[in-house]
């Protein structure tokens, strides 16, 4: 049951068997969140440091709750309150954290590859909580978990990821994760938001939402990342919403039982209309719930006692 990897840096190099182990473990751990006492003693005495060099509320909170439900001591280290503003390098910050003997690190950084650099510098298991536009593996794992719970399988399903593919680490991790698990993945958006060569990751491309929706078992809408400059890649948010927003009219093209997903935070009225976000197809809040279980599973499977260590 141990994973064949020591860190969770991304899904690109993770085997299907490891993904299945994580999803199975998460399915068993989910029930803990419904107990009168929502806590098990598994990671008692272990220290989990959440190193967040980029703003995040939901992912950090989810990791914090996951760690606490396993009895780990969880410490949050956020960039605004840190030495980064005083000019310290990432490597030096990491060495300082390491000297305090954490047992597991959760890292988010605006630069792609930052968690990989840290994994080379230290022995502690590292979970990538999002690095630039590269990967966000725990988001993809919770998306896989949600689809598997709702549909009973992933193999043979068709996933449509629509929106700002260019700036999305969620899209990349999901393309790797869903194709490994046997699903077919389509990416949809205006050409300026679809990076050339994305087909090489295993995804197919469409520029019209209406063409992709009728076949889809899962429709995943992504937020336009204005903070990363996406706003200059199409004429206006209003035009984007008209051409690429998921609204009730477009949902009428969907198969019965299709799932609507969104990694959040959602921009109501832009990529998704309120009726769809709150509608019967939406599993957006199931995704958030799954996030805690999946992160508990990863913390358990990566923390201590793995076959990579002798301790």
């Amino acid at each position, binding site marked *: *049951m*141990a994973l064949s990897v020591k860190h969770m840096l991304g899904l690109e190099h993770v085997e299907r068997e490891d993904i299945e182990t994580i999803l199975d473990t998460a399915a*068993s*751990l989910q029930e803990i969140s419904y107990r009168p006492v929502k806590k098990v*003693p598994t990671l008692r005495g272990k220290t989990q440091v959440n190193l967040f060099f980029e703003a995040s509320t939901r992912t950090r909170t989810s990791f914090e709750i996951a760690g606490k439900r396993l009895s780990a001591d969880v410490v949050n280290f956020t960039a605004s309150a840190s030495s980064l503003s005083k000019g310290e390098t990432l490597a030096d910050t990491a060495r300082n954290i390491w000297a305090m003997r954490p047992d597991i690190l959760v890292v988010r950084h605006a630069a792609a590859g930052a968690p990989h650099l840290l994994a080379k510098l230290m022995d502690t298991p590292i979970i990538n909580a999002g690095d630039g536009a590269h990967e966000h593996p725990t988001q993809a794992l919770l998306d896989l978990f949600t689809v598997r719970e709702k549909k009973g399988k992933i193999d043979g399903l068709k996933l449509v990821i629509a929106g700002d593919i260019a700036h999305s680490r969620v899209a990349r991790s999901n393309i790797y994760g869903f194709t490994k698990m046997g699903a077919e993945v389509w990416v949809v958006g205006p050409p300026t938001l679809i990076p050339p060569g994305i087909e090489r990751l295993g995804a197919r491309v469409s520029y019209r939402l209406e063409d992709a929706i009728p076949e889809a078992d899962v429709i995943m809408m992504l937020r336009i990342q204005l903070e990363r400059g996406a706003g200059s890649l199409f004429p206006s948010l209003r035009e984007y919403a008209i051409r690429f927003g998921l609204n009730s009219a477009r949902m009428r093209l969907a198969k019965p039982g299709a799932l609507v997903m969104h990694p959040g935070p959602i921009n109501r009225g832009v990529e998704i209309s309120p009726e769809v976000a709150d509608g019967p197809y939406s599993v957006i809040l199931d995704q958030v719930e799954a996030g805690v279980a999946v992160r508990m599973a990863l913390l358990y499977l990566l923390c201590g006692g793995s076959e990579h260590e002798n301790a």
Partner: protein
Amino acid sequence: MGKERKILDADGMKRALTRLAHEVVERNKGIESVVLVGIRTGGEPLARRLAALLAEIEGRPVPHGFMDVTMYRDDIFHLKTHPKVHKTEIDFSIEGKVVVLVDDVLYTGRTIRAAMDALMDFGRPQAIQLAVLIDRGHRELPIRPDFVGRNLPTAREDRVKVNFAEAGREDEVIVIEAEENAAAVKSEGGK
């Protein structure tokens, strides 16, 4: 294969369970406040069967659920690999109830310690009792069963295997004796 001895066959297991069920009823003067919790994986089929027997004897259903104690084990990071975590399914309140924990083999007592800790996170039972099919001795904690199907003196290195029809086998309890089995015990850490 090591030297195997059959301790109980299907009939023997059935008789032992029937006696256990009667003892549970007698001790608790009925089963009004009794609930069963089987410890996964070996305690699961036993809890189902005990529940069926109790229902037959007393003419009323008895709530029963299943518990995985992996996350409460004291050796979890001493093992070579992470044990598979199974689901815990207890969809009734244990508050004020007599919880009968059910397991197949009682050995060091560490699993029962973990199960009692886990139970306390589900509420405050009036009492916890322990029913096991086989008590093989070698306790490492001050834990004693209330209901025992068969006391079985063993060497520490022996392995006790309980097979169930539910898992596609014949109901039986087998002891695999030490010398021949030394290698297998090490690799599987059998109980």
